[in-house]
């Protein structure tokens, strides 16, 4: 059971690259540096004012051991406290949580967290297959798509969810992405186009799945004293919860009915005093690797009852003008630079709370939810608020 930290911690700035499928114009360190400079510019700070840097990515994707070492020139962690935390898909939220713990410990006042991935310089599916047990699982492991396909089928069968309902998620999120200058995929789609896109593994079609992106995201966490001097309306971290799990090949039920997300959100809501998430939250940035996952995880996050994810989508409640806009940024379906992906959820939630969302800003955001998904069906949850 986690508790609220002893000291108030706020997110005061964010910086993202303009995410693309390939960034041949920069190497990894330069790409990281782009996000770092944008983050410092957002905070109107210099790197000298940063006490510590926490970084992470998926090492096997680019084949770089100790990336926190090589990237020193880009991250600005030279002669500072630096740390690497990696947890697969949840790396970005693990880093954001690490930023929170660093400041809350009282040891640091200003901490920069950096998540990144340059998927064009590696082979994602090969990297992902390496997570499977070499003796028992690797021969049948097919990266992310296969396992989502199997669990999406189980989800459709159990609750009567339709491919059309899932397709609506792709239409909504890729449309939202038009408002986000950093998003990789911005597409005006119809449900029909999603349904007719190339079948990858039933029921997941090309447009149901997230892309692979090159990009980086940086954030600055600050102590209460510093936070208000840096930005007058920072996003305060009011809850941070992690849940891990270890499912094996056949544990499909765990996947779609994501028990780690259910457990983590329940605890986070309790810490933050949220009773009815659909009503009490103003915006959510949900880590949705595929369309079916967003529907199912509405349920796990308590936005609706079990099996009602499709109906919630149909109702329009999660659209930009709905009761709880989900993924105004365009979500993971629009941008997926894996080590950064979960951190972008937190950064985008913070942008909404700070009122810096520009065209993607949801009006009057007091409380925002950000989730991270990855590892073996792990979940991280953070709740940000306009008041500490």
């Amino acid at each position, binding site marked *: 059971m986690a508790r609220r*930290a002893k*000291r108030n911690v706020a997110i005061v700035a964010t910086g993202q690259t303009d995410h693309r499928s390939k960034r041949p114009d920069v190497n990894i360190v330069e790409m990281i540096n782009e996000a770092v400079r944008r983050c410092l510019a957002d905070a109107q700070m210099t790197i000298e004012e940063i006490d510590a840097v926490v970084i992470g990515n998926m090492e096997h994707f680019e084949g770089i051991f100790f990336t926190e070492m090589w990237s*020193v020139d880009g991250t600005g962690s030279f002669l500072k406290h*630096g*740390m*690497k935390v990696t947890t697969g898909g949840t790396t970005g939220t693990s880093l954001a949580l690490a930023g929170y713990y660093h400041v809350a410990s009282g*040891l640091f006042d200003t901490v920069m967290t950096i998540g990144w991935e340059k998927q064009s310089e590696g082979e994602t599916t090969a990297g992902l297959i390496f997570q499977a047990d070499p003796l028992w699982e690797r021969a049948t492991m097919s990266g992310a798509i296969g396992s989502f396909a199997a669990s999406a089928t189980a989800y459709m069968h159990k609750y009567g969810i339709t491919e059309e309902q899932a397709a609506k998620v792709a239409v909504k999120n890729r449309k939202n992405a038009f408002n986000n200058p950093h998003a990789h995929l911005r597409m005006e789609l119809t449900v029909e186009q999603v349904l007719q896109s190339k079948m990858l593994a039933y029921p997941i079609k090309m447009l149901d799945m997230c892309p692979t992106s090159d990009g980086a995201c940086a954030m600055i966490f600050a102590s209460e004293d510093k936070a208000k001097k840096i930005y007058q309306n920072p996003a305060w971290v009011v809850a941070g919860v992690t849940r*891990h799990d270890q499912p094996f090949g056949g544990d499909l039920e765990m996947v779609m009915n994501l028990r780690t997300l259910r457990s983590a959100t329940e605890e986070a809501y309790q810490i933050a005093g949220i009773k009815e998430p659909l009503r009490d939250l103003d915006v959510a940035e949900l880590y949705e690797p595929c369309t079916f996952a967003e529907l199912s995880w509405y349920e796990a996050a308590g936005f609706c009852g079990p099996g009602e994810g499709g109906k919630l989508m149909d109702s329009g409640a999660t659209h930009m003008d709905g009761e709880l806009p989900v993924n105004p940024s365009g979500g993971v379906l629009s941008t997926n630079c894996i080590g950064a992906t979960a951190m972008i959820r937190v950064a985008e939630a913070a942008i909404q709370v700070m009122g810096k969302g520009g065209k993607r800003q949801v009006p009057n955001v007091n409380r925002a939810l950000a989730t991270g998904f990855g590892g073996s069906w792990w979940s991280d949850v953070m709740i940000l608020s306009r008041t500490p």
Partner: protein
Amino acid sequence: MTERVGIVGVYQTKYEPRKIFDSYPELVFEVSSKVLEENGLTIADMDQVVTNSQDFWDGRTISNRTVSEACGSVLRAESKVAMDGSFAVFYAAMRILSGCYDSCLLVSHCKMSEGSPHLINNAMFDPLYQRILGFDELSTCAMQAKRYLHKYGLTEEQCALVSIKNLHNGKKNPYAHRGREISLGQVMSSRMLANPIKELDAYPPTDGACAMILANEEKTKQWSSTPVWITGMASRLDSFYLGDRDLGEAASLELAAKKAYSMAGISNPRKEIDLVELSEFYSYQELLWLEAMGFCQRGEAGKMTEQGITALAGELPVNPSGGVLSGNPVTVAGAIRVAEAALQLMGRAGDHQVEGAKRALAQGHCGPCGQAQCVLILERGK
């Protein structure tokens, strides 16, 4: 530090060259369950788990995903530090200081026997300009050794004395991978690996795991009658490219040690610290690290070793456990240093106990030539 984090208990596997009968989840399970059992606790008493491993060494993407059941993190909070184990201890302590958690099970593992040290360590260098040169940990550390010995006029014989001392100490440590009496002649005539590093100047590749229970002040006092407190901890990163550094110095270690001393209220480390557990992957590193941490003047660490000051019975015992030269499951190295320092302060170090030890320093590093350095100060508690 205004608040203290306590070390309640530690548990180590026997360190061995090839643990062919145990997979790494089994090593993790062994140390996780034993450390809890020894301290009369269960996993339900732990608020969170911090794991420490490397995807590269495990040959697995998301290396911690395979140890969730083994370390008891199913449907619980866990995070992984992908650096040396000393940084994982730092992170676990920090998460407790945040007030979000009261306690933490920390577990670090590595099976070097299942990977290729050259290939893995080559992957930490710049992929475009440096890997092709064949750089690895050994070849770059040899350059560091050359620069350091040359700059301060130390000798290879002085480095050899470190190996003689540490392997002698290793004989007294039941967990050590190796320990034996060796002579100066044996070290000097051992096979040359990369000039000036010879086989007996280098660590042996090792398999093993180490677990630790950390807790806030209240829980530590409740759970332990021999608590050990972390009273200072700091880390620093140096520049990456070796040409950007003077390899005869260890700037990041110097800064980390100074910060840790100020947190612990130490002004004269040589007098105020009773023992040191440091990560000497190669014998020269013990000397360079001791100087950087201010235990003697620059270039004096060789003499200090000759005079027996760093011996088990000396004025400042360094690596009473036998250090990294007596066994090195590489990612785990720094966690072992903390665990061994804690055992000393608990009075549970057995044959290699330093009598009356009240305050210890543990050091860990990772990256090319000790780029990232971490220093922890531990104190015997009340």
